């Protein structure tokens, strides 16, 4: 028998809520997270190097989440990186003290999301960082991305990052948003349903207007220039399909760029375990297909949080609770859970509308592939330009697996988690197919880079079993 009834992957708002709810139903729960402390990206614990931090709402929520998780009786394996899994279910991780294998009949994957990137010329220069990375620098480390920062891409993270830089005393020389101003208005319905969250966004916007930060809508970066790092950024207009049109507008002196185009649900674990997925552009793209309690097509495999579709931190805890209820029902625990599941599911769907609208706002339309110039590096690990990928596509590559086999795109240490979506956009652009038709990359262990020595462990060469030679 396993030591646990449930293993939760990820200790962000969804995973922590799942673990706490499952503990309240008397399940034996283990939680695994890559970070040194629970909280996920949104409530990431401040670096231990900061002895006094500004109190803010996210910090308070994170501290409350960490305290409740610690008090729940769930076993937290922090600083552990899951690099392989097998059905049903062995979770293989590597931590500070070496390898760890845990087993349980139920798994909730609350792995969150990664940032979607559209490569632009010069994005490989030091000083160009992800929008999510910028929030980590600012919130967890108390470090400004630069002295003169361009914040570019799409979606609500643009305003969050820019306003945090301004609040920290930095200068934002431009906010460059590919979406036209009208697409924000088109989402106003969902936003008005949550005046509290809308006020938060309006607060960010107000702070930027007050600091006289230029906000360029319907605009994208044409190129980032510099020798050893960012020196300047050229921007220009894009059409409604985010295709660059006309001449570049201006060149802005800057020493850093924060870049990102919304979030992509992390589906590597559910792909590895063979769950069915469906394409849902409003929720960030490919997501696992689930039933009413967030169970995937693989029995016992549940998902929660942004990995189940990007709905944001506000909706995440309800999805965690819902998945935990599903696990308890599957185990025949907690009595009749049907009415509670129905209620939590309805609450979750309602609370997710705002986040889904924000997610949709960040989603690039197909024309955005035109932002990538021929010479631009797409796959950073392997140093592959758009022209290289396009010639493989012209040579017949129709899936990410084809591209990988023909060019090594996605084969480097990041495992395609930075360039995969851009590569799929290029296939779609060249073939005229929908993004959905390109499918997802296959997931294979190791899901994360692991040192070979850590997997192999300590052994003596003489201890290796050598099979007897086959008789002739």
């Amino acid at each position, binding site marked *: 028998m396993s030591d646990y009834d449930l293993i939760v992957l990820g200790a962000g708002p969804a995973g922590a809520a799942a673990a706490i709810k499952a503990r309240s139903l008397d399940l034996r729960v283990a939680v695994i997270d890559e970070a040194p402390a629970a909280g996920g990206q949104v409530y990431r614990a401040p670096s231990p190097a900061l002895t006094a931090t500004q109190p803010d709402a996210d910090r308070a929520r994170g501290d409350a989440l960490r305290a409740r998780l610690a008090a729940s009786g769930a076993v937290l394996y922090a600083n552990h990186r899951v690099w392989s899994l097998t059905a049903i279910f062995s979770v293989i991780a590597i931590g500070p003290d070496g390898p760890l294998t845990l087993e349980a009949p139920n798994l909730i994957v609350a792995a969150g999301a990664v940032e979607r990137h559209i490569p632009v010329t010069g994005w*490989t220069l030091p000083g160009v960082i992800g929008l999510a990375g910028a929030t980590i620098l600012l919130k967890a480390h108390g470090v400004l991305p630069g002295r003169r920062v361009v914040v570019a891409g799409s979606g609500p993270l643009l305003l969050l990052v820019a306003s945090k830089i301004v609040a920290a005393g930095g200068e934002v020389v431009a906010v460059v948003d590919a979406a036209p101003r009208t697409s924000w208005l088109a989402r106003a319905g969902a936003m008005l349903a949550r005046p509290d969250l809308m006020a938060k966004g309006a607060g960010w916007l107000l702070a930027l207007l007050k600091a006289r930060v230029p906000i360029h809508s319907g605009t994208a970066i044409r190129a980032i220039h510099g020798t050893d790092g960012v020196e300047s950024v050229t921007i220009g207009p894009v059409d409604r399909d985010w295709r660059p049109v006309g001449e570049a507008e201006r060149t802005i002196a800057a020493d850093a760029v924060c870049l990102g185009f919304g979030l992509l649900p992390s589906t590597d674990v559910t792909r590895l375990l063979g769950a069915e997925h469906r394409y849902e552009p409003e929720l960030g793209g490919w997501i696992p297909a689930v039933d009413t309690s967030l169970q995937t097509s693989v029995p016992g495999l549940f998902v929660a949080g942004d990995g189940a579709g990007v709905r944001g931190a506000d909706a995440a805890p309800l999805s965690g609770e819902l998945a935990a209820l599903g696990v308890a029902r599957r185990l025949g625990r907690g009595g009749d859970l049907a009415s509670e599941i129905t209620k939590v599911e309805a609450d979750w769907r309602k609370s997710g509308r705002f986040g889904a609208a924000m997610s949709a706002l960040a989603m690039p339309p197909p024309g955005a592939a035109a932002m990538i110039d021929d010479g631009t590096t797409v796959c950073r690990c392997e140093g592959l330009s758009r022209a290289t990928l396009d010639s493989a596509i012209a040579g017949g590559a129709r899936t990410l697996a084809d591209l990988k086999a023909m060019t090594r795109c996605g084969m480097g240490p990041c495992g395609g*988690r*930075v360039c995969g979506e851009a590569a799929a956009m290029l296939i779609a652009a060249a073939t005229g197919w929908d993004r959905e038709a390109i499918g997802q990359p296959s997931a294979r262990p190791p899901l994360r880079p692991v040192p070979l020595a850590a997997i192999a462990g300590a052994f003596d060469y003489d201890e290796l079993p050598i099979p007897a030679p086959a008789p002739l």
Partner: protein
Amino acid sequence: MAGDLRIGSARTRTVSFRFDGEVLTAREGETLAAALYAQGRRTLRISRDDGGPRGAFCFMGVCQECVVSIDGRLTEACRTPVHDGLVVESMR
């Protein structure tokens, strides 16, 4: 890029570490990626493909752009807290 990008907040004691032979300081427990970035040491490797400089990009363990040699082991700088006497070599 001039100066130190750290802002506000009281911090832990100063520790020193070596980066490509140069002695730099950090606050104890700060991640190596943040410490280097804040002090303008942003180039962590040279691409073997295009010869261009590269540095930390995602700060969350995804992109692998901040992998450096730390006490002889290849590790992401964004997942490594700095302590006194760390010896770091960039991937040039």
